[in-house]
């Protein structure tokens, strides 16, 4: 086991550290993906790992998303623990069948798990256009048999990725590319495992609950700081794992605050946020003092032009306006 470096690391560093630590710990862990070896990954998540672990464990692939995920599933059924990089998580659509049918349903059909991780960058805000900026978690988070994880801090990126690699079932691990170099933190000593399926209360508050994940977490925290100056104490819940959703943490918070705002970057309709809202309607109705509010991207593709993308992404003004209205309800 290698010690985590002291001092601050980025979320991207944390991903690389988690991969290296797990490869060091378990010889069954192999990496597969496009440009992950010699080039070190499009975002450098695997930089240096080819040199360290060799080409048998850090495998550059052709541009064949279905075949990569398929190969990972096949290898996992014979004892390996493959971690696949989708160069952009948008491209997982080319492996949709492999993920939702072959990985997700194998245990149900046969009793045998498929211990693979499919990880990669998701999310917008970097002017990467409609095919490189999506938040596709909602496509997958309604597939029984998968876990869907989106870390928002460096500590979680390491701890959750390590948990994902050790998991006996398929885990999708979406790393928000905007946070890669912006989210920084100090890693804990030891394994620092963060369990899948457990949300984090990032800020405590009594007046309203903001339920969110990914790059919206720092937005929510900034918003909560602003609201505090106005006398409104917002509690911020970072779901971290979208499937299975940590119902207990969400409900406990809303029971306390009686008001809930769901904030997310994926488009509005039929996503994880809608599920969170449904959860609250079903199980928190008696405690709610106001309708559940959603602050989301609109139901459009992610636009390319900077001004359009800025308008697409939920920002501080939209969030604060919605939160103030909710607080005053």
């Amino acid at each position, binding site marked *: 086991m290698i010690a985590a470096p002291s001092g601050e690391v980025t979320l991207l560093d944390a991903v690389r550290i988690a991969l290296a630590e797990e490869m060091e710990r378990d010889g069954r862990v192999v990496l597969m993906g496009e440009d992950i070896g010699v080039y070190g990954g499009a975002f450098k998540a695997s930089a240096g790992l080819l040199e360290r672990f060799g080409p048998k464990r850090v495998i550059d692939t052709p541009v064949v998303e279905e*075949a990569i995920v398929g190969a990972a599933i096949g290898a996992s059924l014979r004892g390996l623990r493959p971690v696949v990089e989708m160069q952009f998580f948008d491209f997982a659509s080319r492996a949709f069948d492999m993920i939702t049918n072959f990985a997700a349903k194998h*245990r149900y059909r046969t009793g045998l798990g498929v211990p693979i991780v499919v990880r990669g960058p998701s999310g917008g805000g970097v002017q990467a256009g409609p095919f490189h900026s999506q938040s596709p978690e909602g496509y997958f988070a309604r597939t029984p048999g998968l876990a869907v994880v989106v870390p928002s801090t460096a500590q979680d990126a390491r701890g959750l990725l390590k948990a994902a690699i050790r998991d006996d079932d398929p885990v999708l691990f979406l790393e928000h590319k905007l946070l890669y170099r912006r989210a920084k933190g100090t890693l804990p000593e030891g394994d620092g495992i963060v369990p899948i399926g457990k949300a984090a209360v990032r800020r405590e508050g009594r007046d309203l609950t903001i339920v969110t994940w990914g790059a919206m977490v720092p937005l929510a925290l900034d918003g909560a700081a602003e609201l505090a100056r106005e006398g409104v104490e917002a509690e911020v819940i970072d779901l971290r794992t979208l499937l299975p959703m940590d119902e207990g943490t969400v409900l406990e918070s809303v029971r306390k605050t009686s008001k809930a705002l769901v904030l997310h970057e994926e488009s509005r309709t039929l996503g994880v946020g809608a599920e969170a809202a449904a959860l609250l309607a079903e199980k928190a109705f008696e405690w709610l003092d106001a309708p559940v509010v959603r602050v989301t991207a609109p139901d459009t593709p992610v636009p390319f032009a900077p001004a359009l993308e800025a308008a697409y992404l939920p920002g501080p003004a939209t969030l604060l306006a919605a939160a103030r209205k909710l607080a005053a309800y």
Partner: protein
Amino acid sequence: MQLIRSFEERSAASFAEGRSPGTCTCVGQEASAVGVVAALREDDLILTNHRSAGHLLARGADPGRLMAEVMGRATGYCGGKSGTLHVSAKELGVILTSTIVGGELSLAPGVALSVSMKGGDEIVTCFFGDGAACEGIFHEALNLAAVWKLPVLFVCENNEWQAFVHRRETMLTDDIASRASAYGIEGRTVDGNDVEAVLAAATEAAAKVRATRMPFLLETKTYRLRGHFEPDDQGYVDKAELASWKARDPIAALRASLLESGALTAGGAAAIERRVAERLDAAFTFAADSPWPSLDELTTHVYA
């Protein structure tokens, strides 16, 4: 081969009587299944497709447990949760039966990668049809297996039909094995209705894969004598074509050849049919008498 034929015909009859769900049979393709599987070692691994009963039975699957899975019973290979055409049987080295055309091609290189990384000398056999050879994953998988130097014996059972569309309408070439050269690997086409020819070709191909740790594309030319699924009146099938292939029935051909050479007597042939019938009587009774899965199974094994 007789066991496979009779199993499939009884499955079809059982469906017609309303005792089991519809299924896709491999009637007519028995020589391909038996010839290839007989060329493999017990520790070799298999991935297959929706016409898998032949591969499974040739591999030694218990027809009772197989039929139980077809009927969705708790005693089936997957406890009745996977169903007809979806059997995986780890104890037989059958990793996957994919009903999504081409799924077997997607996983096969990974299974072989695992074998290679562990330093074993097993090989991986992947059965698919001419329909799957039209999927993009055919290219991805063969190319990946070639560049990664993986021990995969790709077996294309070219049965001339892609559900209800004739193969001729889906490709301009007749031989799928000719595509092997595009990936820098070896390929060969063999008469898939001649079990001895299949066995010889598969034995040679398997030996090459085992020795070179490189993939090989073997094409067995055969014919789907029954419809795509049960029921299917085959109204879309050219009658002369069907008749010409029925005249080349692989089981009838083998029986005639063995009788002629004296390796089999008429009495011996009858005894085989009787043994198969008895075995299947027991198997179908076992399946039909087996319990349904417990309702608790609904929510088990979704995620550990």
